[in-house]
């Protein structure tokens, strides 16, 4: 299992810059997701590792080898395409066999590996079917088997579940994760679905406009986003404009909102270089809000409406300076009525500061 290293990799298409000077290290056996909206450069990065696109500048190193100039068929990566790209003229077994045949493996070994691969994805009875006879989920599993059977150094997945419906997607997410951890292959996964990214990955790289905005474990990404972009892209966030008033010894700072009704809060800011008097944003996730004044940070708000989503309910409220809040109401908790003035509170550890 190899590591993958991007060193100042840049990609231009004419005047357009798709990827701007990216540095990235994926450790051996790690599952890293590139997450971002269309056009952020995530697929471009993936295809540069596969070798279908050459970087304009920079180096790509895999398992200690500089592969930047290598053609795709010499790189030993296994790619799963969004459209599956199964060879229509070959059976499932023959599709899986393709990479092995090209490597000229002896027949007996081919057959053994194909059998293992089919067992791994639970498709043994389908060996002699043609792709046209399979469902979307089955095709995806064949594509996966085909990619892993060659024992690649790196597994690349390009939005493989985008064409499937929700239930199937969730099922296959579990499958892919299971296979990946069983085989311990270094894996790069590209998606625009943050739920997918958070549930499957060891680390997630949120990409924006050709750059990595933040790369972190799912928890850190969610609880301590480093920018408004990341805070809004991953999950929902409530943002308050505040000014830093005091730095406390325990890594917390005291901030204050502007305007007539000044409200004071304590927030965690250990990792930020921030000065007293600086303006910044205070972010709180909807589920960290509680009604009532039970926690250290409190603010008053007027309820504007509510949205029911089955397992959760969101209550929209307006703060004293016109800020909008979204509060997640847990089942069993009573939701306040429209027009009611309520107190919202949260713990200092449950919020974060953003400088932009």
């Amino acid at each position, binding site marked *: 299992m190899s590591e993958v290293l991007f060193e100042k990799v840049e990609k231009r*298409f*004419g005047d357009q810059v798709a990827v701007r000077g990216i540095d990235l290290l994926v450790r051996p056996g790690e599952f890293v997701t590139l997450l971002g909206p269309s056009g952020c450069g995530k697929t471009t990065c993936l295809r540069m590792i596969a070798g*279908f*696109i*050459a970087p*304009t500048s920079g180096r790509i190193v895999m398992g200690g080898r500089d592969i930047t100039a290598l053609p795709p068929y010499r790189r030993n990566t296994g790619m799963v395409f969004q459209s599956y790209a199964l060879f229509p003229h070959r059976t499932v077994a023959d599709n899986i066999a393709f990479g092995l045949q090209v490597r000229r493996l002896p027949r007996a070994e081919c057959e053994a590996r194909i059998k293992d691969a089919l067992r791994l994805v639970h498709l043994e009875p389908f060996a002699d079917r043609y792709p046209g006879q399979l469902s979307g989920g089955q095709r995806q599993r064949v594509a996966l088997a085909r990619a892993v059977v060659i024992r690649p150094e790196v597994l690349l997945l390009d939005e493989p579940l985008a064409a499937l419906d929700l239930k199937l997607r969730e099922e296959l997410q579990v499958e892919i994760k299971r296979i990946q951890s069983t085989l311990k292959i270094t894996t790069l996964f590209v998606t625009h679905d943050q739920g997918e990214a958070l549930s499957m990955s060891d680390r997630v790289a949120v990409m924006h406009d050709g750059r990595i905005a933040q790369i972190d474990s799912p928890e850190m990404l969610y609880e301590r986003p480093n920018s408004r972009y990341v805070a809004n892209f991953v999950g929902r966030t409530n943002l308050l404009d505040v000014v830093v008033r005091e730095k406390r010894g325990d890594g917390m700072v005291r901030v204050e909102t502007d305007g007539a009704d000044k409200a004071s809060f304590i927030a965690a800011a250990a990792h930020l270089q921030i000065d007293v008097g600086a303006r910044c944003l205070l972010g709180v996730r909807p589920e960290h809000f509680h009604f009532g004044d039970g926690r250290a940070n409190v603010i008053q708000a007027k309820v504007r409406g509510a949205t029911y989503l089955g397992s959760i309910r969101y209550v929209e409220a307006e703060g004293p300076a016109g800020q909008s809040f979204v509060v997640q109401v847990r089942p069993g908790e009573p939701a306040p009525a429209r027009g009611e003035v309520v107190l919202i509170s949260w713990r200092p550890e449950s919020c974060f500061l953003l400088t932009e």
Partner: protein
Amino acid sequence: MSTAAIDRSAAPARTRRAADVWLWIVLPTTAVFCLIFATPILDLTALSFHAMTGPAQVGDAFTLANYRAFVTDPFYLQILLRTCWLGALVTLGCLVIGYPVAYYLARTSSRWRGMALFLVISPLLVSAIVRNIGWFPLLSESGLVNWALLKLGVIGAPLPLVNNFTGVVIGLVHALLPFMILTLTTVIQRIDADLEEAAANLGAGPLEAFWRVLLPLSLPGVVSGSLLVFTMAISAYTTPAILGGNRVLVMATYIAQQFRTVLNYPAGGTAAALLLVFAALLTLLALQVRTADGESASEGRGA
């Protein structure tokens, strides 16, 4: 061989190299093609600018006399006219017979549709020679048509229906009818059936609906299809030669005659060049009409 997957937007040198590969790949086919097609056609055209100096002999001097003869000599003008007349009659025949069939094929949902389509194309699957031979027992003086007409007392003596212009018209209509039917079927299919229902709802009888709705809308397709059939009719050789009994002189049979028996190559070459240009122009015109029609066809649709 590079594939489309390989990125071409890197350094310009690499782009040029990728394009070069394709040039090399297409080179053998292009070379063969120029040799076997482009060169002969050019050679033929060149021939038309020379004079005949004897049977199968060609002079060296450049001359426009051949072309001048074609536009002034009544003999040649007659051939040209006969050719156009043939084309017109055949096209008209195909239209009149083909439109109803095309309408049926376009509108029906009966399970016989596939079978009917197959029947329409089936004559094309048998060699043209065979079809032409088959007309003789039908059209000859002792053939089926004359036998039936005599039996019914419609005529007193057998009609000359083959080895003449009439036979050629019948044969060509038969040969080109499938093309007309297929073209018209596509055209009519693209016209929303709801429009005819709307016309009926507004009080138009079937003939009026045809005249006011179907015909105007299908007109571009009709024109395009007619141009193609016309072109094929004036380009045809086998059918006019056989069914005309070598007596019907249209452009195609005239050209063949020059090269086979009369041995006046320049005259044949001139006629061939003229036929080529005429046929090419008509085909391009037909394609132009078809593309224009295709562009406007989508505008009539609702959202």
